[in-house]
């Protein structure tokens, strides 16, 4: 029992954080479609979960959680989870995946549109009969409106595709946990920015962060993020093993992280006031990310429904 990240896991997160601070500052979100990807690729980020025979490091999902959280905190654009987490479990044999040279996007079951399909070299698309693998050349993309300007949505259609054998369950669970880790990062990023604003913005002759109504809303965000995070870490351990509770643990993680991020967005906007509502402020990128990721890989409601069905159905096993 040692429920905390190892020095290596923390160090990997710190490295990714430094790269993102340098190469994915808020200004980059306006200027570039895929900032910091090259630098992350140079770090070996996209090979972390790939097995050594595919030039990867063969790490477990838990090892990369701090790094994934940083990609959420930085609001990093592009199909990060799809390329770095889903692809290693579904298409590990694709050449050059570890180098970051191949960008992958995914349409999971239950979703209508593919995020970031414009960047993808390969698409993994859920269809009633199972997963299909589609090359970028064979796909037609129709842009669809969404909440998140850095995560555009596309309707995809294609004629040529390959069947993707094996069960997608494990890969999709990992993608869900990875997204939950990003949501924790988004929540913490929003909290940090909002606390910073509340310390400097004055009204009625005092910093608004000195008003109890503001303090207590921010305290609630801190609590929500701090208690969502261990559910996410546990879920990563559960899917890596996997345990019999893995599916339920994944839903618990995603629901809690999504709710924490959405609460953080709500409070961030309320504390910022009208200025939080503008195109000019960077805040909007994080708000949008909270909304878009909370709907990805199963909405909060869908995960709550799964939890309810399992728990009320009598599955009260606990991991550990």
């Amino acid at each position, binding site marked *: 029992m040692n429920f905390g990240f190892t020095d290596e896991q923390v160090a990997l997160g710190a490295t990714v954080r430094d790269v993102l601070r340098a190469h994915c500052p808020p200004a980059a979100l306006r200027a570039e479609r895929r900032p910091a990807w090259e630098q992350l690729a140079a770090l070996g980020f996209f090979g972390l979960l790939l097995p050594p025979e595919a030039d990867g490091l063969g790490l477990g999902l838990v090892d990369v959680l701090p790094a994934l959280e940083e990609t959420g905190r930085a609001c990093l654009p592009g199909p990060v989870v799809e390329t770095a987490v889903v692809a290693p479990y579904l298409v590990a044999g694709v050449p050059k995946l570890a180098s970051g040279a191949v960008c992958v996007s995914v349409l999971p079951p*239950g*979703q*209508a*549109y593919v*995020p970031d399909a414009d960047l993808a070299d390969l698409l993994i698309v859920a269809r009633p009969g199972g997963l299909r693998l589609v090359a970028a050349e064979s796909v037609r993309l129709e842009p*669809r*409106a*969404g*909440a998140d300007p850095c995560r555009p*949505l596309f309707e995809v259609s294609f004629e040529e595709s390959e069947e993707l054998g094996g069960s997608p369950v494990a890969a999709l669970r990992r993608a869900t946990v990875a997204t939950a880790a990003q949501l924790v990062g988004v929540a913490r990023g929003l909290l940090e920015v909002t606390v910073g604003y509340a310390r400097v913005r*004055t*009204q*009625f002759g005092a910093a*608004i962060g000195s*008003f109890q*109504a*503001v303090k207590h809303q921010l305290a609630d965000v801190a609590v929500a993020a701090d208690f969502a995070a261990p559910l996410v870490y546990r879920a990563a351990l559960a899917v890596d093993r996997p345990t019999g509770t893995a599916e339920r643990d994944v839903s618990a993680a995603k629901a809690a992280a999504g709710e924490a991020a*959405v609460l953080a967005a*709500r409070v961030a*906007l*309320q504390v910022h*006031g*009208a200025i*939080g*509502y*503008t*195109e*000019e402020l960077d805040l*909007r990128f994080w*708000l*949008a990310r909270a*909304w*878009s990721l909370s*709907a*990805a890989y199963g*909405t*909060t*409601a869908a995960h*709550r*429904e799964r939890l*309810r069905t399992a728990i009320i159905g009598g599955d009260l096993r606990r991991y550990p």
Partner: protein
Amino acid sequence: MDLDFSPAEQDFRAEVRDWLSAHVPERLPSMDTPEGFAAHRAWEAVLAEARLSAVSWPSRYGGRDASLIEWLIFEEEYWAAGAPARVTQNGIFLLAPSLMRSGTPEQLDRWLPRMARGDDVWAQAWSEPEAGSDLAALTSRAEPAPGGWRLYGHKTWSSRAAYATHGFGLFRTSGTRHKGLTYFLFPLDDVTVRPIAQLDGLPGFAELFFDGVYVPDSMVLGETGQGWRIAMATTSSERGLALRSPGRFLATADRLVELARSAGDPVLADRAARCWVEAEAYRLHTFGTARRIMAGAEIGSAASMGKVFWSELDLRMHALAMELLGDRAGETPWLDGFLFSLAGPIYAGTNEIQRNIIAERVLGLPR
């Protein structure tokens, strides 16, 4: 106590419903685009032609002398019919009540008919960069000039100002804090307008820069130095009955229930049903408020209760729709509605300020 609409009220409802079903256009482009603004302004002219743009106004200004109850009926039908948002709302619902209360007969004759037809579109100019929730801290000022005043300063969060023709707001003519503020009307011609893009990328707000803009004395509303009092009556109507009539939320709730029905999740269904009932509660509460106003009462600080209730209900409804729709939300009007609903607890006095007002002025807790 009764809840029966009179035959006249029922006839009025039928007339409005029939007229709307014949005239409501297809969904217009956003009023925060030039073409959408023009389309919405044209729609106001059509409404005014039928004397439906400001039904509660006296007929000499283009209204029908309708009662508050009839106005509520109009609103219910208007939103149920899916009619366009009102580009004239800042003028009709915020400025006009102050004009009617404090304006001269000349001012009323000059401005109200044009407002009702959408000939003039008014933007409000309350906030400043350092005076948001703390409105009394504003520093924009007016200096006397022959026959009028020159306006100086910097206003922000002015809704609709990107395309509007006129504005109204407070400028300091003397004193500090609440004292010595004067209520001015002004054309936007000589004001520097810098649009502010919102979350959706469209300029729903603007900043206004005044660099000695001249306005004649006839553009002062009420007495000089009395602006705070006049404006507070306006912001109370902004929070209260005028700005967000129940009809809007009833229509949203009906659509939300339709959406939840197809989802089949009982927990989401429960949240939708709860919202639907809350929209009814707001409607009934408003009938009670309307009765008190029609009996001559001032609703005053109690309007803050309504503001908190409708703004948070609206947000809950749209957030639920987002959950029901998942990644399909952007292809429906719900995403724009959600973004707009997020501003509800902020504008017209943040809900934190409203809760302070409820606690201090309604409940009598110490400041």
